[in-house]
């Protein structure tokens, strides 16, 4: 079956530092989605990537889809305390039941 790993599992950063989480699949993906879950909250959709090598930006967040469509990354520039939460990738292919990665929990310290 499909295996999806996210690394790192946890990340503590000082406010202002950059942060990156990686999502790696054992199989080629049709597309990938990213979600953010704040502590005590529910997952919220961030972005969908479809094309090989695609890069999308949302303010300080940069999302990238690997050339082979087997991995993806989420990079946050100059983290803020509002970035705290767990970031999940989803490799369901969109429109199907979500297949979440293991998640990366981000903590930002002042």
């Amino acid at each position, binding site marked *: 079956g499909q295996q999806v790993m996210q690394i790192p599992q946890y990340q503590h950063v000082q406010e202002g530092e950059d942060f990156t989480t990686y999502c790696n699949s054992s199989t080629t993906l049709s597309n990938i989605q990213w979600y953010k879950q704040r502590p005590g909250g*529910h997952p919220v959709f961030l972005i969908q990537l479809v094309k090989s090598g695609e890069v999308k930006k949302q303010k300080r967040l940069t999302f990238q889809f690997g050339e082979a469509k087997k991995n993806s990354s989420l990079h946050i520039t100059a983290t803020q305390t509002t970035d705290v939460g767990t970031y*999940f990738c989803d490799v369901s292919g969109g*429109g199907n*039941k979500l297949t*979440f*990665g293991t*998640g990366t929990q981000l903590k930002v310290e002042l």
Partner: protein
Amino acid sequence: SAVISQKPSRDICQRGTSLTIQCQVDSQVTMMFWYRQQPGQSLTLIATANQGSEATYESGFVIDKFPISRPNLTFSTLTVSNMSPEDSSIYLCSAQGAYTEAFFGQGTRLTVV
């Protein structure tokens, strides 16, 4: 986008009892799903709630323990039956149209004592 109202938000239940969780979507959606999430863990899919037919359960989850209803395209319920402390978790419903992102309810934090 879709707004999902999930209730109750939390409950403390006695073992051996059952709890029904409801999710109401503000628009018609193609698919609805139920997930379980342990603190600090990823989401585990329980089942797909099918409108007008029996839900489709994932491995390790059975209808007798987690009966699901979906009478129309905007509403679904999940019942956690004959509860034990091992059922303590956060339960989340989600809804999505075809090839669109998923939207989640606020979650139900269940504690079984």
